[in-house]
């Protein structure tokens, strides 16, 4: 587990990409990890063709949750909401490139979980419009 904290992970933890808020998000989702109280919020803006035009996350958490979310969101830009909804665990694990211990898996997956919730909210909104 101590191999986890490599330079690029610490860089994403200390300088998270796409961190903050969107002025007018099309879809928003929030969740927290009840184990540790970590919180995460993802905001998505969608263009006419249903692809992610802009994205932000906010909240607080450990290096594992913050770096995993930061790396995942970098890849979400330009993708369709359906594509985001189909993402699996491996999308996170490939980014971090190392096994996560079972006790910390929830931390690593928090960003993925909230991102997919936001994508779902975006699709539901698109359907209702």
């Amino acid at each position, binding site marked *: *587990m101590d191999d986890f904290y490599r330079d690029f992970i*610490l860089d994403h933890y200390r300088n998270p990409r796409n961190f903050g808020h969107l002025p007018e998000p099309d879809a928003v989702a929030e969740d927290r990890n009840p184990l*540790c109280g970590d919180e995460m919020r993802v905001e998505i803006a969608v263009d006419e063709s249903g692809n992610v035009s802009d994205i932000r996350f906010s909240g607080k958490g450990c290096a594992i949750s913050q770096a995993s979310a930061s790396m995942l969101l970098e890849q979400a830009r330009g993708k369709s909401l359906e594509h985001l909804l189909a993402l699996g665990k491996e999308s996170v694990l490939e980014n971090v490139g190392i096994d996560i*211990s079972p006790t910390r898996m929830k931390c690593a997956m928090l960003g993925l979980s909230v991102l997919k919730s936001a994508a779902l909210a975006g699709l539901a909104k698109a359907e209702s419009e």
Partner: protein
Amino acid sequence: MSRTASALVAGERDVRADFPILGERTSRGKRLVYLDSAATSQKPTVVIDAIERYYREYNANIHRGVYEIAARATDAFEEARAKVARFLNAAESAEIIWTRNATEAINLVAWSWGGANLHEGDVILVSELEHHSNLVPWQLLAERSGSRLRFIPVNDRGELQLDTLDALLEGCKLVAIAHVSNTLGTILPIAEVVARAHAAGAIVLVDGAQAAPHMPVDVRALDADFYVLSAHKMLGPTGIGVLYGKRALLDAMPPFLSGGDMIRSVSYERSTFNELPWKFEAGTSNIADAIAFGSAIDYLEGYGMENIRAHERALLAYAFEGLGALEERGLAIYGPHDPERSSGVISMNFADIHAHDLASILDTEGICIRAGHHCTMPLMGRLDLAATARASFYLYNDRSDVDALITGLEKAAAIFRLS
């Protein structure tokens, strides 16, 4: 079991040898440095053996069998109750009710005493630093009864602020308060709170889950109306806990759970209930674990609670001194930061390392600490903290454990490239 104060304090006797798990190694081959006794304590051989002996030699149901092993089981079960009564200096064994844990004991009072005594507009007073187990049952009781919750404030060091207590006590029927904070280790001034609560006509429930394992507790000197604890935090097994209550209160309370063992006579239409303490012990109790908890109390008393407190106080002072060197690198310690006013708990954060990452890194060195909100989310909000890393001590910890913790923190600093 005749051990002296100096044995424990000076470490002449190898306390660790009494705890088989402390001889285990982690998958990385590291010695187990167990610093999470505030979550649950480790168990000495005498406790593990007591469980096994019951199941191997005299497993039988209690309070009904006429045969020899049933009588032996009943005697051992009731003897354990008498040990708890002595340990807490209760007036009589009948004031000791077995529960699953402190949480269940609090719920028992909330449903039984609270259901009968709290009404629209009454006030329940708790402190800002309570564990969820001494908050949520009162929130639900307030909803059921139409009563209101008020909070005794704490300052930024997690110390109780009593200057507004008398005003808070107006209209108050019940005060529910921790003896020791599980998150910060703060020792609360229970005797003073009880005296002022009684003067205002309120009764007091004390959550002793973090105090009873670590210091002498005298429920009559405190004049507590209810006192609750969990065996597993004081060398005993999980699944057994205690509600102490003054007889007059317990006698007047309606039953909580109902069924067998708690009745005197039952017809198809109605029942009359057993006397104390069995009125509150429906169904077959956790016999083995109650008996083993009795063995844990014997073991603790072999050292003496005063000596255990002195040992932890000395260890805390040693830890504060050692950790002080890391403060300039960003180590922050919460709580009173004073061994005289703290139980053996150190709650901290290290620079911008999240508590969970800290715990993961320490884990690679065999060091077990707790990270998170410690089931005190309102207190964490009050102190503006998302999470802390908590190291907690018990009688089997010594200076080598503190040294390992400091080395582990230095390793974390290196991994996180702290200057």
